[in-house]
């Protein structure tokens, strides 16, 4: 896959994932959870990774942090460059320095991502004490300041409370405060709003956006919610079955999706203009990671699939002149028609 694709922008990217292959040993052989994924995150920008459950979104994120459980999982190839340093080659000690300090992560379930036996203050303090060597009192002040920054009322009291005493939205805010405690340059948000109700979702997304602006950090936003992507992301990578099938700016993807899968995704969104209609779906199910079809992995569900799709693996090709918008399909022109047709 295209190592050379983004060569011209290599210098400015904060994080560059190049042809990453993360596989897992399983009962039925090897699962190719992430198979040659390439994307890059620019400083201060948000990259949204979209895809169905099981398409390898979360595994790419865990690979960046080196948290893929290693006996079943292994890296079959690729590089992850963070400020030019290959994280796949970095030792465990170096990774521990990076985690929480330079790259942080927030999780889907704020209910379970906070340790129930510690006060929220303790959990924030632990990170800064470990990474920045603050003493206890300074760390406590820092924790209070962080809680205030994420918009938690009366942080002096909240800092001594336990997670079960906070509501879901508050917990996600605490989680963000924890992840942001050391001012990381990259925040990985793995479906940060899935478990929250809609009003809180908006608040949390706004908060992340605001903090990003203030601190100048980059965000890798993993979601299956196209609405969330539209609201926050600058670039979008659409993943299917362990591969990036389409990549581009959020405007390009939303305005003119070119891959049949992306188009299918947009078709499955409820349309406010035509209420009462049956929702369109993409036929079939995501193939098992142990038995991906040959050639294009989407061909079993693709309306355009032909002979060529079963034999040749499609590469990402530029669909616009500037090369910003790419898609991996043998029938890009036909797909355009698919888009118009609906």
């Amino acid at each position, binding site marked *: 896959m295209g190592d050379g694709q983004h060569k011209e922008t290599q210098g400015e990217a904060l994080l560059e994932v190049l042809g990453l292959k993360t596989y897992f040993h399983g009962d039925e052989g090897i699962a190719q959870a992430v198979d040659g994924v390439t994307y890059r995150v620019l400083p201060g920008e948000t990259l949204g990774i979209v895809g169905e459950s099981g398409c390898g979104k979360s595994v790419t994120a865990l690979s960046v*942090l080196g*948290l893929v459980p290693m*006996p079943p999982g292994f890296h079959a190839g690729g590089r992850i460059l963070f400020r030019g340093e290959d994280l796949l080659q970095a030792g465990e000690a170096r*990774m*521990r*320095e*990076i*985690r*929480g*300090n330079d790259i*942080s*992560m927030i*999780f*889907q*379930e704020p209910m*379970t*991502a*906070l*340790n*129930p*036996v*510690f*006060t929220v203050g303790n959990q924030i303090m*632990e*990170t800064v004490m*470990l*990474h920045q060597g603050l003493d206890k009192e300074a760390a406590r002040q820092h924790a209070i300041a962080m809680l205030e*920054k994420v*918009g938690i*009322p*009366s942080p002096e*009291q909240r800092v*001594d*409370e*336990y997670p*079960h*005493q*906070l*509501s*879901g*939205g*508050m917990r996600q805010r605490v*989680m963000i405060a*924890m*992840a942001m405690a050391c001012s990381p340059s990259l925040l990985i948000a793995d479906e940060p709003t899935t478990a929250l109700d809609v*009003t*809180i979702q908006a*608040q949390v997304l*706004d*908060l992340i956006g*605001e903090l990003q602006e203030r601190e100048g950090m980059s965000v890798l936003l993993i979601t299956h919610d196209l609405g969330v992507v539209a609201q926050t992301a600058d670039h979008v990578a659409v993943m299917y079955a362990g591969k990036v099938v389409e990549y581009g700016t959020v405007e390009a993807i939303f305005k003119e999706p070119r891959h049949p899968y992306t188009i299918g995704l947009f078709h499955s969104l409820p349309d406010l203009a035509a209420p009462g209609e049956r929702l369109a779906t993409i036929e079939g199910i995501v193939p098992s990671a142990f038995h991906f079809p040959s050639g294009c992995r989407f061909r079993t569900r693709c309306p355009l699939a032909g002979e060529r799709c079963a034999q040749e693996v499609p590469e990402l090709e530029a669909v616009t002149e500037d090369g910003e918008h790419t898609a991996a399909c043998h029938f890009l022109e036909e797909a355009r028609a698919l888009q118009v047709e609906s």
Partner: protein
Amino acid sequence: MTKVMDGEPAAESAPTTGPRGATYSKDYWDLVFDQLGRNRLFKLAAVVLTLLYASAIYAPLIANDRPYVLEAANYAEYNKAWRTLYPASLGLGSVAKKTPEEYLAGRTEGSDLSYAQALENERMAVETQLATMKLYLAAERAAALDALLGDVEELVALAAGTAEARSDEDLERIKEQHGAIKDQAKAVRAEYEARDPEAEAPEAATEPEGATESVGLELQGIRSYPMFESIAAWESFFMLLWLALMSWPLWNRFWNRALLGGDRERIRRARRQKLAATLAFSLLGALLWGQFVGGSSSLNLAPYKQALTEGEIVETQALFPPVPYGFAEAHSTELYRPPTWTSESEIDEEGYYARGPRRAEPDAVTGFMPSANPVVVRFGESERNAASRHWMGTDSSGRDFLTRMLWGGRISLSVGLVSAFLLVIIGTIIGAVAGYFGGWIDLLISRFIEVVLCLPALLLIMMAAAFVDPNLIPPIFSIVILIALIRWTGVARLVRGEFLRLREAEFTLASQALGFSSARTIFLHILPNAMAPVLVAGAFAVAAGILTESTLSFLGLGIQEPMPSWGSLINDSKSSEHWWIQVFPGFLIFVTITCYNQVGDALRDALDPKMKKH
């Protein structure tokens, strides 16, 4: 956005207003204690257990054959010293008069003492006798002994100084000096005999005149505290710890009000300090005790009661504990005596039971009366037929059963606690490793656990106990270790299950994503979450440990005589005639086990995360 407030309730638990107007919401442990406080059965069980542990910890203070305070003169000891003084002075002279060469030639075969050492030994012998005598003598009489001691030291210095080259003149001086010592010793022998209290006491009643003209000195009593001197530093540690824990509500209030100003947040954070202070207080107290009292109860039997009864020691003051028996003190005239508050326990003057099944009858054919000895009532004990003589009867050696139960509780209760503590540690470590790392490590450990589970635990413990040399490892330790080594599987499986669950929890991933090491993740982040079921299992393990120890001791594989444990006490007699032997310790075991099970149940309820919210 920062100003936008969450539209949701701030917290589930209702905030209460602290003294400073700050909101105070209850934390996990507040809620656990609240929950426990509402459980009446738990409170009852806790009180009973507290009392049981108090009785075990303070057993030496409650039941002991050593008096609290003893002010007495030891005539036997004095007279022995007095008798030995003159021979000792002769022995000193015989060494001093020899030259080193003569001494070496004439010394006993096999002796390897040098001349100087032999001289020092002889001097010590004299000095010891003098010191013992001086203890009981008034100051003016002691002066003569001091003079004698001075002469002895002079003689030794003379003999040692001239050992290398001794002239005839020197020898003369030595002889002269020794003559003086011999004379003094003779004088002491003539004048310093103590009166014989043994002969005097019975005579005083029959012929009063004879008693007044008795020869010999009246000795001064010296005050000692034999019972306290027998308490070792570790015993004082537990006594102090219990006191500190029981008085917690008292000093806790002071600490909170005066030192923390009633600030609830600071009170919450001071919890660990208080625990540390309690431990530090007890430890410091125990260290001081070991330093200044330095007690040890190396001997099972104390000589005081016997000597007081026989008049070898004459007391001016003697205060015995409420149960004045040692746990190994036998009464050969009261074997298997029923509790003395029952009518069947009555014994007449000759030593025959007055009524009940043990009543002595002459043989129908020969008219022969079985022999009996009158009951010996020692100093400080209750009267022959007083209800308080043996509240719970005596055992096969005539040892007071109440005393043995109090002391037996020390073994039984501590075996339960320590074995549970050990097996929780073993089980937690093994279970944590299996659960956290998973894979083939988990597979191996799980299969191993299953193998251990398949073995009949009690049989294995019995077999192992039979092979352990009790002289090498005291039975109490081997039992504790064996129980822990075989019973850890339950805790290990619990912890493994918890770790399997928590390993997948997002906070584990989160702690890794924040850059924490695996050790930190396992022990600081996962383990506290897995502790609730372990605590419950621990409470039940204490009960099981006590039961196992009782079983082993009952079968004779556990604690060895004369140390009692509740199980071995039951083993003392299996006859229904001796009902008190089985009923009392059995009841104690039953109560303890029930209480621990109750505590375990209450803990399970209180630690349940679903109960936390309200």
